[in-house]
């Protein structure tokens, strides 16, 4: 057993949550983007998490194998929500009826997601601090 395993598990989550925060930033930044390299308005990006045991399997105790898992980003996919049509005839991307296709991004949803991601990140930092403190305490035995 490795005293750093627990930190590795938490750091896998830090990485995953950071990817999620970056994705949310991208969604918020592109809330009114109507042009993309692929054509059409920006599509909301969604992060999908998956638990993984690969990174730590070989270090773990026999009875913890398969039970203790870290996390990784499985995919970042485009939202299936249709673009929001807004009436704005003066917009350069307006169609013949004066409607503009805007990304269907709900800012409140993004802000709530951002707070959840940030809280999850904090929780993992606390877990790393606890593991570090425990390891340091073990080094103090016999002082």
């Amino acid at each position: 057993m490795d005293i750093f395993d627990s930190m590795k598990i938490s750091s896998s989550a830090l990485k995953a949550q950071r990817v999620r925060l970056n994705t949310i930033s991208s969604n918020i930044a592109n809330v009114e983007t109507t042009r993309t390299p692929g054509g059409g308005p920006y599509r909301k990006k969604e992060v999908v998490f998956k638990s993984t045991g690969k990174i730590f399997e070989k270090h773990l105790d026999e009875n913890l194998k398969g039970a203790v898992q870290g996390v990784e980003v499985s995919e970042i996919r485009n939202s299936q929500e249709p673009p929001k049509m807004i009436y704005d005839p003066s917009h350069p991307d307006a169609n013949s009826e004066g409607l503009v296709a805007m990304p269907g991004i709900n800012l409140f949803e993004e802000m709530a997601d951002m707070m959840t991601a940030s809280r999850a990140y904090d929780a993992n930092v606390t877990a790393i601090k606890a593991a570090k403190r425990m390891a340091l305490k073990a080094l103090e035995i016999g002082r």
Partner: protein
Amino acid sequence: MPIPGLFDRTIGLLEKTLDLRMQNQQAISANIANVDTPGYRAVHLEFEEGLKHALAAADSGIAPEAGAAGGDFSRVQARVVRVADPSGIGDRNGVNLDEEMIDLAENQMLYEAATQMISKKLGLLRYVIQEGK
């Protein structure tokens, strides 16, 4: 700790406690890491009962020597229990973050308590070796 009589079985028990608490730390870290993973079932380790049984067995055992009793504790294994989401709504994630944070703090404190006890035991031994100086 092969010298019989020098270390009593408390050291063996504390040693195993540190080991199991570190494993528990890993399980709690994994739960916190997977707080947003759909369908994840929380992992809980149960070992208090196992240690209690081992201690009771050592107390009533025929072999009171330190070596034999210490061997008992080293065989104690944590039992892995997986908890699915009881609510059945949302992303079916079984992690309760508040509970995990409390478990984390509790586990850390009990680990530190065990390290303190080992330190004190060794301190007593050192006191005797140095003839109370």
